C-alpha cells in the first residue's frame, strides 16, 4: 500500500468514524451484550455449537448429494429447482421466471445472497420493479446503499437520517419524526406492494434436503407474507444452506437468534415446504385462487461456493449462518461498520471469506487488514468458525499476489522472512519486528534517539506507514535474556524445586520491557519454581498478523526446536505476552505437526495462570507482594478467548487487591495495528471507551504489551503487567 493510498484509507475511516460510526457502535455493542447475556445463560450453548458445526461439516461435504435430494423432493411437490453456476446464471433464471408470468412487481424479504447476486439490478433490467420489504433493506434500497451489517442493513443510519430519507422520498403532509410513524407508513406502503405483487422472493436460512422444507427467520413477518401472498414464490439460497433434514434444524434455530440479537428465538421462524398449501389471495379480483396455482422455484446458487468447498482454508466460511455475531463482537467493526469493514456484499470478520470466495481476493483485500486477529469473534461464532485464520490466510494470499509461487531469491537473501519480493513494506516491517527489536536493543540508546528524531519519524511514516503520532517502543539496552545470564541464571536449583519452568522471552519482554520478565522470574522463584530463560526466537505472532504465514511457520518450527529439549526435560513453558501464548495454544495447530503442537500447547501457561496454579497447590501467597486498594485490570483479547482472564483477577485478589475489570472488548491497539498510519484514528477511537472506563482508576494494569502501550498513551500513565505488581 502506497503512502497515498494509506492516507486515502485513513481519510475514509475518519469520515465513517464521524458519520456512521456512532450509530453502528450503539447498536452493535447492544447486540453484542445481548448475545453474551443470552448465551451465558444458556446451558446447552456449547453442546449445540458442536452439533451445529458437525451438521454443517457433514452437509458441506455432501452438497452434491443434497442438491440431488432436494431437487427430487421439491419436484415431487410440483416445484422447480435451478442450480445456478454464478450470479449471471441465477439472475437470468429469475428474469425468465418473471417474464413467464409477465411480472410487473416483485416483493422481497431480506436475503444477503440476493444482494450478492445483485438481483434487483437484474430485475429492473427485465422491467420488473423489486421492493425490499424488510424495513432496514427498504431504507438501504431507497438510499441506494449497500447493507452495513449482515442482520441490520441500515444500522449505520440514525432515526433522524431515516426520517430525512423518507421525507425526501415521499414528501408527506406531516414530516415523519418518530420510529412509530415511519414504521406505520412503511408498513402500509409495503403492504400495498405485497398485496399487488406478481412474484414473492425470499432467501432461506436453511433448506432441509429430504423434504424440501426451508426455514425463514424474521422478526417483522415480511418473509411469511412474501412467501404466502403472491402466486409465484422464488426462494434464492446458496448451496451451503442445504442441511439433510428438518430434524437438523434444532441447533440452528436455538443458536441463530441468540447469536444475532440475544433473543431466545426470533419472532417468526417459518418452516415451509413450498409450494405451500395456503390458498392464493387475489386482492385485485377479491377471490382466493387454489393453492395448486402457486408456482415455486428454488434457485440454488454456486457462485464460487463449490470452489470454496474444495479450499481447505476457505471451506469453513460455508458454515456461516450470517448471524453477524463476528461483527458485533469486533471492536473495529463497532467503530466503523460494514461500509469500511466489508466488501462488495458481506460485512464483518467473516466477510473476508465470503468476499474472497464469491467476488474474488481483491474484494476482500479492500478491508481485510481491519481484522487484527484479536480472536474476540471466535467464541462468538455459533458454528465455531476460525474467522481470524480465514483473514490471515486471505491476507497471505493477497501478499503473494496472483502467483502464489512468486519468490525472489535476491530479496529473499536480504530479509529474514520467507515472503515474496512484492510484499507491502509496511507489512514486511511489522512482520519482522523481532529483528527490528533485536537490532534496536543492541544499538540502544542510540537507536531510540535516532528513531525518535523528527526526520526519522517522517521517513518511517512515508516509507513504512508508521504513524508519527505514536510513541515508539523504547528498546532496552540489556535484554531480558542477557539480564538473566548476568545474574547467574536460576536461583532455585532444579533438584528439589516444586516445578521447573522456562520463561519464554517474547520479543517485547526481551527487548522492550525486560522488567515484565524480571518480575515473572522473581515471582516464580518465590513460589519455589526453578526458572530458565533461554534465548528462543520470536513466536511468529508478528508475521502471522501481517499474513506472512510461511515466515510464521518457520518461526514456529524454530521455537519448537528451541523449546523441545526443555519439554523433554519435563519443564513447563511460562509466557508473559498473551498473544504469544495464543500462538502456542491455538495458532501453532495450523503451523506445526499435530503432536508437536499438542505437546507445546499442553505445557504452556500464561504467567498469572501459572502463579494461580502454584497458589492452588499450596504455595504461600505471602511470598508474593502484598497489595491493597483498587486495581483496574484490562485483560487481553486472546487471553479472554483462551478463558484466562479470571486467573489474573484471582491472583491479584489473593494478594489483597480489589480488582475492577473492563467489559470493553478491545483496547484498539492490537499489536502493530495502532501504529499504522491508516488505522491510527480508528485505533484511538476503539480505545476511547476503555480509557473512559478507567479514567478515574489510580492503578491500571494490562497483560498485553500493546494494550499497555495504548492505555499508557490514552491515560498518560504507566500500565504495567500484573506480574509486576505481584512479584516480590
Amino acid at each position: 500500500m502506497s503512502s497515498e493510498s494509506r492516507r486515502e484509507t485513513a481519510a475514509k475511516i475518519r469520515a465513517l468514524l464521524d458519520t456512521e460510526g456512532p450509530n453502528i457502535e450503539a447498536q452493535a455493542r447492544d447486540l453484542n451484550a445481548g448475545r453474551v447475556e443470552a448465551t451465558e445463560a444458556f446451558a446447552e450453548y456449547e453442546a449445540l455449537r458442536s452439533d451445529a458445526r458437525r451438521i454443517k461439516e457433514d452437509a458441506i461435504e455432501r452438497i452434491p448429494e443434497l442438491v440431488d435430494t432436494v431437487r427430487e423432493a421439491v419436484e415431487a411437490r410440483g416445484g422447480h429447482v435451478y442450480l445456478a453456476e454464478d450470479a449471471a446464471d441465477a439472475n437470468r433464471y429469475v428474469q425468465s421466471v418473471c417474464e413467464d408470468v409477465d411480472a410487473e412487481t416483485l416483493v422481497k424479504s431480506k436475503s444477503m445472497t440476493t444482494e450478492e447476486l445483485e438481483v434487483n439490478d437484474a430485475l429492473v433490467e427485465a422491467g420488473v420493479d423489486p421492493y425490499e420489504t424488510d424495513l432496514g433493506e427498504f431504507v438501504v434500497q431507497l438510499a441506494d446503499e449497500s447493507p452495513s451489517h449482515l442482520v441490520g442493513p441500515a444500522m449505520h443510519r440514525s432515526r433522524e437520517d431515516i426520517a430525512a430519507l423518507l421525507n425526501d422520498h415521499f414528501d408527506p403532509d406531516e414530516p415523519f419524526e418518530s420510529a412509530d410513524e415511519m414504521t406505520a407508513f412503511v408498513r402500509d406502503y409495503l403492504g400495498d406492494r405485497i398485496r399487488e405483487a406478481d412474484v414473492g422472493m425470499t432467501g432461506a436460512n436453511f433448506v432441509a434436503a429430504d423434504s424440501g422444507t426451508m426455514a425463514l427467520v424474521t422478526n417483522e413477518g415480511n418473509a411469511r407474507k412474501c412467501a404466502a401472498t403472491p402466486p409465484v414464490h422464488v426462494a434464492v439460497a446458496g448451496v451451503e444452506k442445504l442441511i439433510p433434514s428438518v430434524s437438523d434444524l434444532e441447533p440452528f434455530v436455538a443458536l441463530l437468534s441468540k447469536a444475532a440479537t440475544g433473543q431466545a428465538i426470533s419472532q417468526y421462524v417459518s418452516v415451509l415446504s413450498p409450494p405451500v398449501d395456503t390458498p392464493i389471495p387475489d386482492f385485485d379480483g377479491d377471490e382466493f385462487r387454489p393453492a395448486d396455482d402457486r408456482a415455486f422455484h428454488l434457485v440454488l446458487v454456486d457462485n464460487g461456493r463449490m470452489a470454496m468447498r474444495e479450499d481447505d482454508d476457505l471451506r469453513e466460511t460455508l458454515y456461516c449462518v450470517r448471524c453477524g455475531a463476528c461483527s458485533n463482537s469486533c471492536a473495529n467493526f463497532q467503530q466503523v461498520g460494514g461500509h469500511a469493514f466489508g466488501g462488495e456484499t458481506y460485512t464483518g470478520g467473516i466477510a473476508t471469506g465470503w468476499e474472497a470466495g464469491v467476488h474474488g481476493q481483491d474484494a476482500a483485500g479492500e478491508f481485510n487488514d481491519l481484522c487484527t486477529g484479536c480472536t474476540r469473534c471466535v467464541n462468538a461464532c455459533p458454528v465455531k468458525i476460525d474467522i481470524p485464520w480465514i483473514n490471515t490466510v486471505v491476507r497471505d494470499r493477497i501478499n503473494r499476489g496472483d502467483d502464489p509461487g512468486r519468490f525472489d531469491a535476491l530479496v529473499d537473501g536480504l530479509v529474514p522472512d520467507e515472503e515474496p519480493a512484492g510484499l507491502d513494506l509496511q507489512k514486511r516491517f511489522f512482520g519482522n519486528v523481532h529483528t527490528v527489536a533485536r537490532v534496536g536493543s543492541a544499538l540502544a540508546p542510540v537507536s531510540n534517539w535516532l528513531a525518535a528524531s523528527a526526520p526519522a519519524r517522517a521517513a518511517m511514516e512515508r516509507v513504512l506507514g508508521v504513524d508519527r503520532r505514536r510513541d515508539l517502543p523504547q528498546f532496552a539496552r540489556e535484554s531480558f535474556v542477557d539480564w538473566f545470564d548476568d545474574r547467574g541464571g536460576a536461583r532455585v536449583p532444579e533438584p528439589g524445586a516444586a516445578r521447573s519452568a522456562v520463561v519464554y522471552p517474547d520479543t517485547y519482554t526481551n527487548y522492550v520491557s525486560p522488567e515484565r520478565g524480571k518480575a515473572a522470574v522473581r515471582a516464580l522463584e518465590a513460589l519455589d519454581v526453578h526458572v530458565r530463560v533461554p534465548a528462543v526466537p520470536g513466536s511468529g505472532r508478528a508475521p502471522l498478523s501481517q499474513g506472512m504465514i510461511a515466515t510464521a511457520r518457520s518461526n514456529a518450527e524454530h521455537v519448537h526446536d528451541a523449546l523441545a529439549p526443555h519439554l523433554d526435560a519435563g519443564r513447563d513453558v511460562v509466557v508473559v505476552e498473551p498473544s504469544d501464548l495464543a500462538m502456542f495454544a491455538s495458532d501453532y495447530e495450523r503451523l506445526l505437526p499435530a503432536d508437536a503442537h499438542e505437546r507445546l500447547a499442553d505445557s504452556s501457561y500464561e504467567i498469572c495462570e501459572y502463579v494461580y496454579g502454584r497458589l492452588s497447590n499450596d504455595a504461600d501467597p505471602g511470598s508474593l507482594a502484598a497489595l491493597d486498594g483498587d486495581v483496574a485490570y484490562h485483560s487481553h483479547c486472546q487471553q479472554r478467548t483462551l478463558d484466562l482472564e479470571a486467573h489474573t483477577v484471582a491472583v491479584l485478589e489473593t494478594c489483597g487487591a480489589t480488582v475492577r475489570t473492563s467489559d470493553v472488548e478491545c483496547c484498539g491497539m492490537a499489536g502493530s495495528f495502532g501504529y499504522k498510519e491508516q488505522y491510527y484514528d480508528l485505533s484511538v477511537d476503539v480505545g476511547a471507551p476503555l480509557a473512559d472506563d478507567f479514567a478515574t482508576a489510580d492503578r491500571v494494569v494490562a497483560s498485553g504489551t500493546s494494550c499497555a502501550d495504548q492505555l499508557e498513551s490514552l491515560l498518560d500513565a504507566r500500565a504495567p503487567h500484573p506480574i509486576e505488581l505481584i512479584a516480590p
Partner: protein
Amino acid sequence: MTDPAIDHVDAFRASLEAAGVTHETVALGEATAAIERAVEEPTVGVPVHVDASLPASVDTEFSPSDLHAATTGVTPARLGVAALGSLLVPSGEHGDELVALYPERHVAVLAASDVVPDLDAATDWLQSEVDAGRDSYVFATGVSATADMGALVEGVHGPTNVHVVLVDDREATSGDDTTNA
C-alpha cells in the same frame, strides 16, 4: 407426583407473558365464549384444533378484502413451546398463515395437552409432521417487531398483539388422579 404437563403449561404461560402475549385458560365448554371475548371485530377465522366451534361473529367464509379489513384473525396453534412461549401455527389449505399474519390482532386457540417443553420436542414433532406430509408451520413468538427505524417498534408486517385461548383438556388426555398409576 407432579404431572410434567402441568409444569409445562405454567412455564408456557410465563413465557407468553415474557413475550408480551396475553392469554386465558378455559375449560373446553367455555372455549367458544373465550374466543368471543378475545376478538375485536371484524374477525376472520379458520377451524381450530379443539372440539369447539367458532363464535358466529367470526367470518370463516372470508374473501381477500375481508382478510385485509379484519381487525382480528382466529387460528389454531398446533403446539405451544413452554420454554419460549412460541406458537406453532399451521400454514395450510384453510389459509391459517394469512389469518394469523394479516390482521393486527391474532387469537390462537391451543389445547393445553399440545404444550411441549422445548424446541427439541417441537422439532421432533415437526419432523414427524413432515414425514406425514403435513409440512408447513411457523413458530410465532410474541408480536411482529423491528428496530430498523432507529428504535424498537412492535407491529410491522405481522400482528401488533397476540392472545392465546388455552383450552384445558388435560383431564381427558393426560390421565387423571382417579386412575391407577
